[in-house]
């Protein structure tokens, strides 16, 4: 069940422990695995003559603290690995019964490693009234569960808006906790729902907004952002139409070398969905290997094939779940009126052809 990578990481950890233990230092040492303080090694001389069963570790700053859960091992000293890593900036005591033998402080992370916001999607400075979601991309893995208190939306430089974003627990982080998806409350965007009737749409046309990401947001090691991040935008009309791929403009490569395929979109689309909804197919419908790049504020994409293009027909396959900024996908609009809207499409994907001469 263990992946190859994790085996090698375990092995690396094992070697690091050996390296640390081979040092014959006389003080308690921290066992690091990346940036995590995964354990401590208590030198043999500190615990000579003491029953190993009586030894335990406690958080020092907390007077009512209990023995920390974890495993002890004998490896050139006494090694303690807590269930979760030690916390940066905290001091831990080694006890025999109620008697403190020694202590160690886990250093704070390097100030130069403080996280920052890289960008906020959508990239545009004019956004539709029914904007559905935003993505915040950070330079470092961030602590979860803090978005509600650290993301603020201010209208016309004065009013801080409440209940604009959907409070989701758990929050929608990517695997390494560097990209967070936040939803503007769909209950307020969908017309006629109670939250919409009571509070109105989260954004109003022709108004100016500032999204502020507070410096107080901390990363996984407790470090604050280097500074606040701000994005201002103006709100335009509601977008009640599905993206129309017929209006995309294809600039096919002129010949069969590795030239770029460029496609201009008729409106900005969801950045991360664009990344996963596109593929290029050859005349047999098989995927062409290559690399996509999204530019022009998510209004254009390019494709460079890994191998040379061949002469003949190709197609761009677009999964129907691709959305615009208002959550309208190729098959149906986000806020569908069951009485007047047309029946939603059922296709899994749409295709647009092009030819290499």
């Amino acid at each position, binding site marked *: *069940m*263990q992946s190859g990578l*994790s*085996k090698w990481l375990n*092995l690396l950890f*094992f070697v690091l422990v050996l*390296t640390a233990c081979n040092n014959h230092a006389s003080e308690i040492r921290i066992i690091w695995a990346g940036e*995590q303080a995964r354990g401590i090694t208590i030198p043999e001389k500190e615990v000579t003559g003491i029953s190993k069963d009586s030894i335990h570790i*406690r*958080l020092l700053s*907390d007077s009512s*603290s*209990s023995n*920390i*859960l*974890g495993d002890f091992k004998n490896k050139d000293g006494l090694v303690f690995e*807590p*269930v*979760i*890593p*030690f*916390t940066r900036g*905290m001091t831990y005591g080694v006890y025999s019964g109620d008697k403190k033998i020694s202590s160690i402080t886990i250093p704070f992370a390097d100030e130069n490693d403080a996280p920052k916001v890289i960008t906020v999607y959508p990239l545009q400075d004019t956004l539709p009234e029914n904007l*559905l979601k935003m993505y915040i991309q950070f330079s470092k*893995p961030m602590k*979860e*569960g803090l978005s509600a208190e650290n993301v603020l939306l201010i209208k016309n430089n004065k009013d801080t808006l409440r209940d604009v974003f959907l409070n*989701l627990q*758990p929050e*929608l982080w*990517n*695997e*390494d906790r560097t990209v967070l*998806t936040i*939803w503007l409350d*769909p*209950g307020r965007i*969908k*017309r*006629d*729902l*109670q*939250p919409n009737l009571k509070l109105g749409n989260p954004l109003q046309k022709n108004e100016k907004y500032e999204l502020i990401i507070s410096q107080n947001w*901390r990363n*996984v*090691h407790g470090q604050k952002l280097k500074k606040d991040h701000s994005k201002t935008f103006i709100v335009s009309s509601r977008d009640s139409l599905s993206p129309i791929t017929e209006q995309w403009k294809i600039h096919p490569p002129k010949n069969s070398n590795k030239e770029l395929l460029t496609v201009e979109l008729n409106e900005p689309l969801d950045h*991360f969905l664009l*990344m*996963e909804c*596109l*593929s290029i197919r050859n005349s047999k419908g098989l995927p062409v290997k*290559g*690399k996509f790049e999204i530019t022009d504020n998510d209004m254009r994409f390019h494709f460079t094939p890994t191998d040379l293009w061949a002469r003949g027909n190709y197609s761009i396959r677009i*999964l129907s*779940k691709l*959305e615009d900024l208002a*959550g309208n*996908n190729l098959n149906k609009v986000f806020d*569908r009126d*069951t009485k007047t809207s047309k029946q939603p499409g059922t296709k899994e994907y749409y295709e647009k052809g092009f030819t290499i001469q």
Partner: protein
Amino acid sequence: MKKNSFYFVMLLAGITLLAATKPSVKSPYGFTKGNPEIKSISALSFGKDGILFIGDSKGASVFALETKDAKTGNASAIAIEKIDEKIASALGTTKENINITDMAVNPVSKKLYISVQFTDGTPAILKVDNEKIEAVSLKEVNFSSIALNDVYAEDAKDARGRPMRVSTISDLGFDNGKVLVSGLSNKEFSSTFRSIPFPFTDKQDQASLEMYHASHGRYETTSPIRTFTTGKINGKDYLIASYTCTPLVLYPLDELKSGMHVKGRTVAEMGSGNTPIDMTTITKNGETYLIMGNTAKPVSEVNYKNIAAFEGTLTERVAGTAGTVFVQVPTLTKVLQMDKLDNTRVVIMQKKDNGSIDLMTANNDTL
């Protein structure tokens, strides 16, 4: 040079050691012994024989773990004040650095299991036994796992080759040999619901669900399920699900199969501005009641008899509440977690007005 040789020998020793600890032992549930690579814990639920199912959102997987806690135990009431501080202390940190992500009572031993996530994402499972907090080992344990099916486009990966899609598991359950998983994707605002036979094979069913949100007169709603349970109503097995703004919706379990688009029957509207947290059942005067814990509303309870009697579906717009009659328990507000202790009691993790997070047991007199 000498030092290098030493490291080389130790490296070989390490490889040998790793090879020696490769999973090898087989069990009736298809478990192997090893270290489950659990990346996060969003939801917990027990199956039979003390088997704990763990929903891993970050790893897009479900794990089944043999807890070896399968001895029948007495269900004694659980009451612990400031449980978050006590858990943090046992883990060597402070409460700001942990998130309690779910809890589940082992129906056999009646011990309470709590999942926690450290600030850097490291997950942990703790067992509460008579106020004593113990760690549930995730090393060298018997386990199996299944990756949740998800369709990625060919190029749906970032520069480091990882898929960009993020899913969270909102709830997990076990019913009649199947692990049931409700989820939410970060891309489309809709529900995924999976039914996975256990012991795990390659098979899993994924149905798309649609319900009519009666506080929403005219427009279609495909929202993510927040919590669910299963139950027999008028002799038929149903998935009983609830969503933000609290509609209560029934889906026939036998229809939830791959490729099926199933329309649910909305049997109650239990109030907007609220997210349901957990659902379970208790017995009172010989009748079964559905108990629902909420973020903004008090704990609500619905008699199954009333759900059975409500044969229609809400299709007209309603303001406030409608449909099947339910009652609220005014003292039980701000519920963070809830699970069934036995037929007459539930364990509740509740945020008190003074900010304290406490564990308490509510019996069918108070409910």
